[in-house]
């Protein structure tokens, strides 16, 4: 399948935009299409990019102040009345601070509230560790009925927002603060629950989610120069996992590395490892935050410091190929 990616992946001049902006556009479009869409924010309207919606639909925008427990729970109450609420704050606070309310009033209650966790990952930058949410994937994927999506770039974030608006399920959308390369296009397929093989390969499969997929693609280019054939699998929907695509890739390549801008404990890579351990048992190398908090710095230097760049992925792939036979299951 042609993924219709841009043709300058890895180039310095590639367009940069934070995926929050894609969410902001998607939310506005969703609101224009369906007047039951409402947006709730905890005092972060500009930085969560809810501002365009709030400006267009002031009567459908609800400010709750810095009160994230109230944020998600008022959302649950509005969903009880047939509204489709998007509730947003920084991921450290939603779901970080209000996980129990999400569990009880959204998941157990089965209400289609969309929790949007902005500023996830270490690329939050100078604000430091307190605001660099790394545990949100673990928190949200462990909840029954919750859909978890981490879009790769702003174009995909817009599509993901529209898809989530229509899925009638509790959902979590993970967004970044920093600008990221825009490498998908309007023709790139996106469907909740679907993983995509962006590049075919045979020596090793690199499976990534969110912001790390671009890094995986750039790493694959480097590896190609060294004669290594890399399969890059983009997994924007962490839950429900597209088992067919993931297992097929794993079986084909026999070696798997996962990459996420999050704690590896109970995160995306763990989800892959859990799946493969039952269906196609093989060692899985999980790249991500290795049980550490972040710290203040510029996004680029933090990613480098914590080993989450294309160079690091390429190095890890070399090492994994040297160490590991291929487990063709």
């Amino acid at each position, binding site marked *: 399948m042609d993924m219709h990616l841009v043709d300058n992946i890895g180039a310095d001049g590639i367009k940069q935009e934070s995926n929050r902006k894609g969410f902001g556009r998607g939310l506005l479009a969703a609101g224009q299409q369906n007047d039951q869409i409402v947006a709730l924010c905890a005092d972060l309207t500009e930085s969560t990019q809810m501002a365009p919606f709030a400006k267009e639909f002031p009567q459908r925008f609800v400010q709750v102040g810095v009160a994230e427990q109230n944020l998600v*729970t008022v959302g649950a109450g509005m969903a009880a009345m047939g509204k489709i609420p998007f509730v947003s704050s920084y991921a450290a606070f939603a779901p970080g601070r209000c996980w129990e309310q999400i569990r009880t009033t959204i998941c157990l209650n089965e209400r289609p509230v969309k929790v949007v966790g902005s500023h996830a990952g270490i690329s939050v930058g100078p604000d430091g560790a307190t605001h660099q949410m790394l545990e949100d994937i673990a928190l949200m994927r462990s909840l029954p009925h919750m859909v978890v999506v981490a879009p790769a770039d702003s174009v995909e974030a817009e599509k993901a927002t529209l898809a989530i608006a229509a899925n009638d399920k509790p959902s979590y959308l993970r967004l970044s603060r920093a600008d990221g390369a825009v490498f998908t296009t309007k023709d790139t397929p996106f469907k909740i629950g679907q993983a995509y093989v962006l590049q075919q390969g045979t020596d090793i499969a690199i499976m990534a989610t969110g912001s790390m997929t671009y890094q995986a693609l750039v790493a694959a280019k480097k590896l190609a120069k060294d004669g290594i054939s890399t399969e890059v699998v983009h997994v924007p929907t962490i839950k429900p996992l597209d088992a067919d695509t993931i297992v097929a890739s794993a079986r084909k390549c026999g070696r798997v590395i996962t990459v996420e801008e999050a704690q590896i404990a109970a995160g995306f890579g763990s989800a892959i490892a859990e799946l493969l351990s039952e269906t196609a048992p093989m060692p899985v190398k999980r790249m991500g935050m290795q049980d550490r908090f972040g710290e203040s710095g510029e996004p680029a230097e933090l990613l480098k410091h914590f080993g989450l760049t294309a160079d690091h992925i390429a190095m890890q792939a070399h090492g994994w190929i040297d160490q590991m036979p291929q487990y063709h299951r």
Partner: protein
Amino acid sequence: MMQLAIPQIQKMANTIRMDIINMLEAAGSGHAAGPLDLADIFATLYFNVLRHDPKNPDWADRDILVLSNGHCAPVRYAAMARAGYFDVSELKTLRKFGTRLQGHPERTRLPGVETTSGPLGSGLSQAAGMAKAMQIDGQTGRWVYCVTSDGEMNEGNYWEAVMFAAAHKLHNLIVIIDRNNIQIDGNTEDVMPLETLRDKWESFGWHVQEIDGHNVESIIDACSMARAIVEKPTVIIAHTIPGKGVPFMEYDYHWHGGLIPTPQQAKDALTRLRSLNGKISGDHD
């Protein structure tokens, strides 16, 4: 939708109290004090105050009742059964495997429950969200009632909702606090003092009423007045006696949830309730 007169509501509250004793004895676990002291309020709500239709729990125009202190579910289940939402015989399935009457109420299990609750302090936020949605849609003549405990006011989430409702002028939201002065570890004023409660709510921008939570006429009047207040949301602080109606339980915080009546205690309680608190007697007692 039925509207009973005051003496009939009082009798219904008594019946609900008996249902609660029977339910808890059959279940072998659950909470006694709160449900018993809420019986008058629930009888009044389900048989006079609420606009609702037991045969049509999703009726789009209905008033909504949120029970924030979800552990008091037994009183809600009993009131719902007596009102005709389901058969009274189902009450004995409380807390049993496969039941629709879960230990803490779950929306998806039982039509009419409106929302899931149990973890304290979050019901008011949900109720406020419902009221806010009604406000956005310009709905009038419909109210959201939210029953809460006093102990759960320890939770920060609770006060977030209190501020929110006042800020958004949710006058279609009416809170009824079960002010029974107890929580698990003791009396509220010993564990985490709440007084002066009236002052707190007024300073947060709410209209405050205080009533005897066992006086049916007062409950009806307070709700009427609450509906008439349009500049701010209303809270009705309903002073109650924990365990009301069962003399050996009254005023004792140990009956909040850790204890279930023994078969003999249950028998004594039911005898007392059947006699309408000593007003009548029968040969079989």
